[in-house]
């Protein structure tokens, strides 16, 4: 077996006095699809953001493709990497956000191209054809010259996913990519994610769509107050929850 795509060892993270992640361990291999579920405030988003270095973490190790993210040891002391190094590492993972966060002043096409040109240092032409390929994949090629403000939420989210994927990341992070969408738009985004999973993309996702988590994941993790409450294959977790808290959570989120 190849080295893991993501390896998290005893990750701790605090906001001031509040400890939000209290020792997380997680290993993901090529092609794994892991869903994080759990009640609001349990630390799902924070976990994702630590992997993408949008948050600093105090203790533990997060490694992507065998490389520790964000920090290195120097003279036995843990020091933060340089700005430039961190930027490079961030590009190893792709992230899709709850609120899409498209660049409002650029067309769909340029949203996807920007990272290719500035980070991957592609020529304009090359970036253009890569972007075209991915916009096609998410069904947004026809709208490539539209600005985010001219697109529906679902369409924006699909462009955002294309923007992340086009960077050819080792690992994709999805943070509740459908929860800001009107109900009728949820499916168009979920089916894009589902396709990516089928194609073998390694993905870590936070979702409140239990049915979707059940269908798409190889493993589901129930986060509970900064810890991993329970984890396992989706069928086991959803059908036979061991802990009462998970059972209660599943009930309240109406999984059926």
């Amino acid at each position, binding site marked *: 077996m190849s080295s893991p795509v993501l390896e998290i060892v005893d990750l701790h993270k605090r906001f001031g006095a509040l400890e939000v992640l209290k020792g997380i361990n997680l290993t993901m291999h090529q092609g794994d699809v892991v869903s994080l579920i759990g009640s609001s405030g349990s630390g799902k988003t924070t976990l994702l953001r630590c992997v993408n270095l949008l948050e600093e973490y105090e203790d533990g190790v997060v490694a992507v493709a065998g490389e520790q993210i964000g920090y290195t040891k120097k003279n036995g002391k843990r020091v933060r990497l340089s700005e430039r190094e961190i930027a490079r590492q961030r*590009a190893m993972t792709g992230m899709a956000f709850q609120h899409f966060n498209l660049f409002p002043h650029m067309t769909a096409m340029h949203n996807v191209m920007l990272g290719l040109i500035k980070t991957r240092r592609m020529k304009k032409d090359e970036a253009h054809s890569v972007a075209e390929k991915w916009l096609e994949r998410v069904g947004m090629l026809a709208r490539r010259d539209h600005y985010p*403000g001219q697109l529906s939420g679902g369409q924006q989210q699909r462009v955002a996913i294309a923007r992340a994927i086009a960077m050819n990341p080792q690992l994709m992070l999805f943070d509740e990519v459908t929860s800001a969408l009107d109900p009728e738009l949820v499916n168009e985004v979920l089916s894009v994610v589902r396709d990516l999973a089928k194609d073998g993309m390694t993905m870590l996702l936070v979702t409140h769509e239990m049915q979707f988590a059940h269908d798409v994941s190889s493993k589901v993790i129930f986060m509970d107050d900064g810890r991993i409450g329970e984890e396992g294959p989706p069928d086991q977790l959803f059908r036979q929850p061991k802990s009462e808290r998970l059972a209660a959570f599943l009930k309240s989120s109406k999984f059926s």
Partner: protein
Amino acid sequence: MDYNFNFAAVWRDFDLLMSGLGLGLILAVISIAIGCFIGLLAAFGMLSKNRAIRWVSAGYVSAIRNTPILVLILFTFFALPQLGIRFGKIESFIVTLSVYSGAYLTEVFRAGLIALPTGLREAGLSIGLTEFGTKLNLIIPVMFRNVLPSLSNNFISLFKDTSLAAAIAVPELTFYARKINVETFRVIETWMIASLMYVLACYVIAAVLRQVETRLAIPR
């Protein structure tokens, strides 16, 4: 009252007035351009994590905004040379107006930066841009478009401040108006024409900036 209007004297020197208006516009454009740069730096400074940088930026804005520009103009022109910092009168005025406009623009930019969604920066970082790259490609272009309307207002009032360059004998519109006034004593006519020129210039600037706004507006 039986005042006989006589614009002839003013028309005779109208080209002087026009050249003064032109110089005023040039001074304003140059100063505001520099001011934008200062304003951007100070705006980022005010939002910096570093307390000292925040303090310096805020101090700059507060000190400059609360001091009359005439005092600043005279200070730069007459006092700074004593410290060995010396400019010609036009350069001196540009320096003053740049620093002055920088303080006002700082506030504009700061408000614009605060209003940006945090997701913009994070999305930029997540595709591997550096902090600087994010600012350059995303934060500044989006913020700039958002603050254009209040920027326009500032541009206009800063343009009007060029009239004070007359105090250090920079030959702009007000300077020539005063000169014509003393020479010909067609007081009403001179000031009527001069104010009209200012008002019209302001309207033109406003119209141009509105054009820029629509041109740059993000389609939605």
